[in-house]
């Protein structure tokens, strides 16, 4: 007996327990996918976040068309100039246009951030859930792999294999970043899966004859989704920054090409004196991560049916049928 107010909405409590319900003829009830989608689109955060990301993409790929300047070509008449009508975001020490550089960098970073976060989360959830669910030798082998990846100095491996990957472009780069980013998440997913596996609804699914991979996809992963989503949103920002470190090894984005990461790395020490070298890139990155967070929060709430209780303002938007 608790004093917590019952979570059952009054409408649900009114359905008589034991009395036959009226028999309306209706279409097949909506499945989870449609419900989650509907709930997501009903959330203001997701719409705002989605709009921001869309605008950032527009800026990144449309921006170069707006400015006459090229990101690499220096303007020797304007060195370290503050933002003006000619150079919107100012220029750097070589006279390169910061706006052109920023939008160029944004192109790279948007794609890298999103793809790395996506791939590493998928890898982490699959490896973690399989290790936790199947147990036994699968668990031992996968956990060993995770531990191995964790103890190996990742930069050492990257230096060794990077010469071989030269010229393969940004996809290989994304794969490498993702490959060194998923292990800790996988370990957490594994332990969460192990406790979920003992829950009765997973047992029930097993006894119904649902195949193991289906159980992982339908029951395990949705129930660890809150953690995965939070983790993925953090990974987006982290991926943008770690790409800078790779550039240091001469791998990934190299001068004169730029990314938000390299721009920030170059601009950090000059930020107090020449703020335009740092703050435009930093601002866009913050905006990007913020937007991803908004989408992530919305997705998490949409997947978690109990979340509406804590946000009464959104309650009216959830699908309520029948009454």
């Amino acid at each position: 007996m608790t004093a917590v107010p019952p979570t059952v909405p009054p409408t649900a409590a009114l359905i008589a327990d034991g009395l036959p319900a009226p028999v309306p003829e209706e279409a097949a009830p909506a499945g989870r996918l449609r419900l989650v989608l509907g709930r997501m689109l009903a959330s203001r955060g997701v719409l705002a976040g989605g709009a921001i990301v869309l605008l950032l993409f527009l800026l990144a790929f449309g921006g170069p068309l707006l400015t006459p300047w090229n990101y690499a070509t220096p303007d020797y008449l304007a060195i370290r100039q503050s933002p003006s009508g000619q150079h919107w975001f100012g220029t750097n020490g070589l006279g390169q246009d910061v706006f052109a550089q920023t939008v160029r960098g944004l192109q790279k970073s948007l794609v890298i951030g999103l793809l790395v976060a996506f791939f590493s989360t998928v890898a982490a959830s699959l490896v973690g859930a399989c290790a936790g669910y199947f147990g036994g030798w699968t668990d031992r082998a996968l956990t060993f792999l995770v531990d191995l990846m964790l103890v190996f100095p990742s930069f050492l491996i990257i230096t060794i294999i990077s010469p071989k990957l030269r010229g393969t472009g940004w996809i290989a780069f994304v794969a490498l970043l993702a490959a060194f980013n998923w292990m800790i998440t996988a370990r957490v997913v594994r332990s969460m899966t192990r406790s979920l596996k003992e829950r009765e609804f997973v047992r029930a699914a097993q006894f119904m004859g649902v195949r193991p991979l289906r159980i992982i996809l339908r029951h395990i992963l949705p129930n660890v989704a809150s953690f995965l989503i939070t983790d993925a949103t953090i990974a987006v920002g982290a991926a943008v920054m770690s790409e800078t470190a790779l550039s240091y090894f001469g791998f990934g984005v190299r001068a004169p090409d730029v990314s938000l990461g390299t721009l920030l790395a170059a601009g950090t020490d000059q930020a107090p004196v020449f703020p335009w070298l740092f703050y435009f890139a930093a601002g866009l990155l913050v905006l990007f991560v913020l937007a991803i967070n908004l989408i992530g929060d919305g997705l998490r709430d949409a997947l978690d049916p109990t979340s509406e209780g804590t946000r009464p303002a959104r309650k009216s938007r959830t699908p309520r049928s029948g009454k």
Partner: protein
Amino acid sequence: MTTTVETDLLTVSDLSVDFNGVPAVRGVDLRLRRGETLGIVGESGSGKSVTSLAILGLLPTTATVSGSVRLDGRELVGLPNRELAAIRGRKVAMVFQDPLSAFTPVYRIGDQIVEALRIHQDLDRPAARKRAAELLDLVGIPSPERALAGFPHEFSGGMRQRAMIAMAIANDPGILLADEPTTALDVTIQAQVLDVLRTAQRETGAALVLVSHDLGVIAGMADRVAVMYAGRVVETAGVDELFARPRHPYTLGLIGAVPRLDTGGGPLVPIPGGPPALATLPPGCPFAARCPLAEDRCRTEEPRLTGADGHLAACVRAEELAEHGPAPSEVYPVPTVPPAAVARPRDERESVLRVTGLAKTFPVLKGSVFKRKVGEVYAVDGVELDIRRGETLGLVGESGSGKSTTLFELLRLAEPEAGRIELLGQDTAHLDRSAVHRLRSDIQIVFQDPMASLDPRMPISDIVAEPLLAQGAARELIGRRVPELLRQVGLDAAHATRYPHQFSGGQRQRISIARALAVQPQLLVLDEPVSALDVSVQAGVLNLLQQLKAELGLAYLFVSHDLSVIRHLSDRVSVMYLGRTVESGAVNEVFERPRHPYTRALLSAVPLPDPAAERSRKRILLAGDPPSPTERPTGCPFRARCPVHTALPSDLRTRCEQEPPALAEAAPGRDHHAACHYPDA
């Protein structure tokens, strides 16, 4: 101790408790005289536990308490914590539901009792220790000196609850508050603990407030009863009066909703709907929405608790009820159970499940890196089951008797460690993977906890569709079946897009049943399907199960620790003890003429919701706890606790000690088997 019977020891008047503006208790009046037992009965959320905690001032700081609680004329509400602490344990002591969490796990039992003694009494350590040993002896803990040095986790549940009672009576309190003291325990252990509570009360002369949801326990223990509903007392009377002539329709419904051990079969009386949400209570009587006798005036004003000669009821039609004294089934609509779909006699019906000699052991491992086997747990060691089409087999046993292991072995549909499982005539030992997958649609399970067995992140349309998907059903079929199934179990098909947490416990269990029925199984395994539900809701689910069985010709394997429910629903019953089937047979045979001493003890331990019958019954109390399943006893596994064995002359005893009894027929051709050497002793 001075006993002045006339004055009330504890007077609670107009007690109200709010949690952040949500009421939990709304104006409760109670009176407790010296030495009497007051039973507070109610369903979950009725405010009975909050009331008992509020008396002791043990509520969290988010609770706002108003009204008055007077102990011996002294007001307790609003008393500073320091002064309350001097009263708690000294004048009013509490026995909690879960004795494991009520003891600090890192201190020895003895130290905790000594601490309780020395806080309130001026005793030196050796004297307090001696007193603690006396107390443990009083509550029937064997070798109390040694038990003092034990940690809480080393005690079994029943022993912990005894120790808890010992601690509660340590300072000779005037009042014992017991909040669901036996809910977490098995029936035979419950009988022991209730007996200890009576002893403790007799020794200390304390008054007892017994909070319980179990009408049987209340009927057997209480002198007076208060029935709570939606945060208020709706009826209070002497125990005989209350059970014989209830004046509130809710009490009447509760009495009708309880399945009884002494009468079997037929539909129960369900109270429609569920308890109201206290946050949004409509004006008028809170029970009006569920009450078949509700009139217009019930919905405008909440009736006061009134009545003559100590029998008070909060109902405008209490007089009428008192005058006519109708049976519950005359007031509440009772569903009719259609005639069974399978009407042939049992011998002609085909077998659905046959289990012979099933065994399952778990290794006991030691060591962290290199695990070595140091022993075996004989979880299941000789189970026999036989279920025919359209029949319900009740599987009874206390916790640790191997019920769940048996179920999981059945549902695994693989070759058992020993013995034979035949499902629909197919031996599970010789099945390939696709055959197992096909067979899965014939055997489905409903779990105990309706919250845990439904994925919280899935809408119920997907939950109910899951077994169909697993069997590769077509989309159109699933789309048609889901609303049909929901209606079949009495839910609104329009609610298919809701999530499990939006439903009440009884409704969730109906969803579970709908899911199990989706693939049209032949055998439904029901693992304690109603033990997590309130009595009034449980009746509805049990009626549904009876209806479905009759309509669809299902066979049930109904697992429960509650013998009354088994008696009510089953055609045949099988009793397990320590992983073995000790008695089986037709339900009336077994319940009326039990042959195994364990069955007899079990049956006598079940409390009846009828005070008069409860007082006249002879109780067989079993000694001690079930032995550990890590040792395989020679001879009869029950003999250590067996009252028949101890009464036997020594030359007959050797047979029990040396020869394990086999299941033997009571008479040739009679469906009644017992594994006892001396079933007629």
